[in-house]
């Protein structure tokens, strides 16, 4: 079985690094994984996406995730909801949004499962701000783990340690994951 996840973000929010950490968490859980960043002329603030595959068998495909098959969309900036081809999504596709409120544009999407977490608030509480941008990717991963339980919380924390080493940054990211895990809610 293969789960395909797309992380939608703006350059500087940590979406690509988040994809790597999520793949690493799957790796620690003993799954086959892949993290594919969409590279190009990316720059701070520009829309960007990164894909993650977590599978019980070796992953043979190398293409970006196919929209209809995507299990989850992790949206790091609510203004990017408009980039999701909603009409193509399959029944029960999960969308997790960094937002204080239930986005109006999704209020009639009955076939989707939608959840939110105020990741900006959590990132600020944890001091995860770099060059004026809240680093919300680990927050959003914590919310995704709460919503799906598809990788273990422990593995996600260990993936953060693997990415950032021991120190304050790791501690802050782990705290952000714990807060997101407790504050995430389905809408």
């Amino acid at each position, binding site marked *: 079985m293969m789960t395909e996840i797309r992380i939608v973000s703006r350059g500087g929010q940590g979406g690509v690094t988040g*994809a*790597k950490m999520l*793949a*690493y968490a799957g*790796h620690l859980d*003993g*799954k*086959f*994984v*892949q*993290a*594919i*960043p969409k*590279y*190009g002329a990316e720059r701070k603030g520009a829309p960007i996406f990164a894909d993650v595959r977590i599978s019980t068998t*070796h*992953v*043979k*495909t*190398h*293409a*970006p995730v*196919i929209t209809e098959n995507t299990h989850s969309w992790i949206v790091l900036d609510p203004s990017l909801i408009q980039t999701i081809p909603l009409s193509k999504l399959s029944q029960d596709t999960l969308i997790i949004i960094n937002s204080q409120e239930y986005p109006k544009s999704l209020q009639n999407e009955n076939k989707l499962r939608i959840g939110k977490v105020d990741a900006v608030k959590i990132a600020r509480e944890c001091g995860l701000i770099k060059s004026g941008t809240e680093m919300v990717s680990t927050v959003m991963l914590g919310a995704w783990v709460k919503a799906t339980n598809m990788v273990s919380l422990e593995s996600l924390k260990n993936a953060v340690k693997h990415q950032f080493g021991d120190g304050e940054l790791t501690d802050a990211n782990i705290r952000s994951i714990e807060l997101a895990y407790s504050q995430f809610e389905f809408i």
Partner: protein
Amino acid sequence: MKEMVQTLEKPQTKLMTGSEAVATAAKLSRPQVIAAYPITPQTEIVETLSGMVTRGELNAEYINVESEHSAMGAVIGASLAGTRTFTATSSHGLLYMGELVWWAGLTRIPVVMPVVNRSLNPWNIWPDHQDAMTFRDAGWIQFYAKNNQEVLDLTICAFKIAEHHKIWMPVMVCLDGFILSHTTAQVEIPSQSDVDNFLPSFKPLAMLDPDDPFAHGSLTDSEGIWEQRMSLIAGFDNARVIIPQILTEYTEKIGRLGNYMVEVTGDIDNAECAIVALGTMGEEAEQAIEFLAEKNIKAVVFRPRVFRPFPKKELISLIKQVPRLLVIDRAVSFGNAGQLAIEIQAELYASKVDVKFYQIIRGLGGKDVSYADIAAEVEKVLKEDK
């Protein structure tokens, strides 16, 4: 069905990008001189290796150069001085290196060079095979890897193949830019002692020595060039035989790889159509045949992992067993067709093989090619040839 099976439980299985897999393989192979110039999407390879040298993890001379042309010049000199050499490049870097790529090929310099496949002009950083295909005639062995694991395994094998005294020629290991170079996936890392056991230290066939002087690459008359070219042709004939032997040795001593020049995936006996593709499109096709099987369509994948020497015999013996053939190229010889298709067609005629032949070009400039796309092409072939 052959599969490159990885064992996730082993602690030596690590998550890494294709670029890191190249750098790791290079480090394990103990090159003595590295000269390379950064270019997207190859940059992470040279960054990683220069870091390893700086931190003392890799005992190599790292020569900072001002261009790809100089990088190849430096490794040619270093190789002739009797050292194991390594460089890596991509796209325009490869073109700029071009004069010396031919020099290394025609004068038989056993350097190993991963080429992170990237499109050419106008500016485009995304993957296709146009860069490496441009040098398919340059006297280099060419491998095309399908995933990060194969990148690592083939890079280590490339040193042993390049340096075999009956081959003694440069080797390109091609990996699709971004699709492999920047994608993180699991790679099983062999131990240093296992690699040392497989790959002994560099033994020069001839080396420049002030105490025993000779000339290399100086002005040569027609007779000399003729003799040299014939010897290079013979070297490729040797390579055809020796490459599978070296892959066998790697598989026995280290694991996984398998000794085939053309990988076969699927049920050849019942296949309605065979798909031929290089690199990651080959593994994408493996996924496509599983997708087709759900629709009760039987297909098989023939993936040449080596393009030079061209595995003619292996391909022909396989193609003879199927009714239809779909060749997918990720590059094009403008004015004709995809290079893989052209070369297979020539062999089909020479060997009088009767097969329905279809060719398509996909993925130029990094245009995505998914298993669903490939499956749709197979269905189209079957519809056209009822």
